């Protein structure tokens, strides 16, 4: 089909039918439309260079170049539409896939990514990111939370309390993301909630990225003495699969906080499911 769209009463997400990538999110309640290109990339881990012998490792994130490499420029897609759910399944490679999902009544887009085992047969350590590129004019600013409490403004190549000279243009702009990261132009806000702590940044205006997985072949020399291979019990395995979710909200800057705070509560205190065959004996204390 030339049209690849999933939509409920609140949100519409459009995909490029040729590449299978997310290209647009629309908030139908607020009549907001934002071009958003989302895809997976990886940074080639540094093993040290002539400036510094520092390798990327468990403690240190140090890519060997500023631009990450795309996992693939397009994704094989499959579309599922039923009355209870709409999903676009995107397969980027043998080790990277994603399901973009919308349930009825939901005000956010759910991106469930599956990454791994990261191949390292080429001898390169890899640090995999999910990146959202938008047209928002963000003036070098983005926002991350600190344990879901205070949202802090982060400015690219800047520290608020000293004159800062940036030597690591990627890693030096990465910050912890405990539950959410967002970018805004003052009118519109794109927020991404995470289901676990991750590293995140905005390395160019309108862009937002989160590191979802990494597998490294060198130790960073900070005392661990072992590369971050994620190899399994005997250190020789194929690496780990990771599955997680990013919840994406598009809203006005004014209304965004109410939306992401309520949604984050619902995610962190998510319902717990327990199964039973039934027919158990009546039980009363005592």
């Amino acid at each position, binding site marked *: 089909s030339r049209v690849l769209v999933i939509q409920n009463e609140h949100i519409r997400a459009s995909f490029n039918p040729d590449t299978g990538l997310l290209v647009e999110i629309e908030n139908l309640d607020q009549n907001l439309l934002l071009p958003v290109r989302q895809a997976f990339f990886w940074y080639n881990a540094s093993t040290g260079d002539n400036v510094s012998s520092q390798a990327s490792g468990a403690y240190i994130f140090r890519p060997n170049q500023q631009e990450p490499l795309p996992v693939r420029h397009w994704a094989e897609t499959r579309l599922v539409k039923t009355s209870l759910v709409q999903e676009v399944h995107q397969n980027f490679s043998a080790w990277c896939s994603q399901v973009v999902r919308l349930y009825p009544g939901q005000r956010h887009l759910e991106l469930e990514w599956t990454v791994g085992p990261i191949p390292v047969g080429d001898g390169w350590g890899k640090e995999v990111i999910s990146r959202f590129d938008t047209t928002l004019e963000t003036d070098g600013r983005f926002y991350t939370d600190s344990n879901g409490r205070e949202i802090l403004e982060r400015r690219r190549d800047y520290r608020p309390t000293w004159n800062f000279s940036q030597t690591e243009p990627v890693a030096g702009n990465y910050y912890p993301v405990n539950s959410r990261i967002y970018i805004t132009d003052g009118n519109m806000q794109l927020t991404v909630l995470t289901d676990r702590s991750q590293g995140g940044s905005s390395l160019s205006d309108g862009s937002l990225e989160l590191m979802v997985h990494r597998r490294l072949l060198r130790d960073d020399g900070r005392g661990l003495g072992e590369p971050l291979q994620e190899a399994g019990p005997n250190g020789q395995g194929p690496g780990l699969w990771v599955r997680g979710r990013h919840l994406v909200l598009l809203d006005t800057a004014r209304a965004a906080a109410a939306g992401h705070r309520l949604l984050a509560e619902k995610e962190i205190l998510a319902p*717990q*499911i327990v199964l039973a065959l039934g027919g158990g004996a009546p*039980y009363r204390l005592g």
Partner: protein
Amino acid sequence: SGESVPLREAMAVLQHHDAVSGTSRQHVADDYARQLAEGWGPCEVLLNNALARLSGSKENFTFCRELNVSVCPLSQTAAHFQVTIYNPLGRKVDWMVRLPVQEGVFSVRDPNGLTVPSEVLTLPGSDSQEYPPELLFSALVPALGFSTYSVDRLPRQKPRARTRRPRPQ
């Protein structure tokens, strides 16, 4: 009897040592995983006891730890089962329940015995090992409480033989 102390202690050890950041040697990370798993066992018993007391029925509850990768032996084999959903949030929530099942038709009833809309999602052209069919239904759960839904796999209907009516001459 169940208890939550081993899980709390395991969590304390993990948090103290920053265990999720990847900054431990692999054999140490494996030991963190072992401590968590050993702590979780008696916690499940504790939850069983609490649910039995709250629901007034003593069940052999099953916790599907691999639901995130669509693996749950009970829902994938049983023809009838109950799904108890506990909501720890201070307001009621609507939650889409997804459970891996065998292919077929299912009936889902809410705590009042009323049938709720449900469907079995299969990914066309996919391997059922990798993408098992999933039963979806929306559950309404009260604040700081739980709801129990009943799931029945309906027997496959046999195709009925049709008798041809004689045409009037």
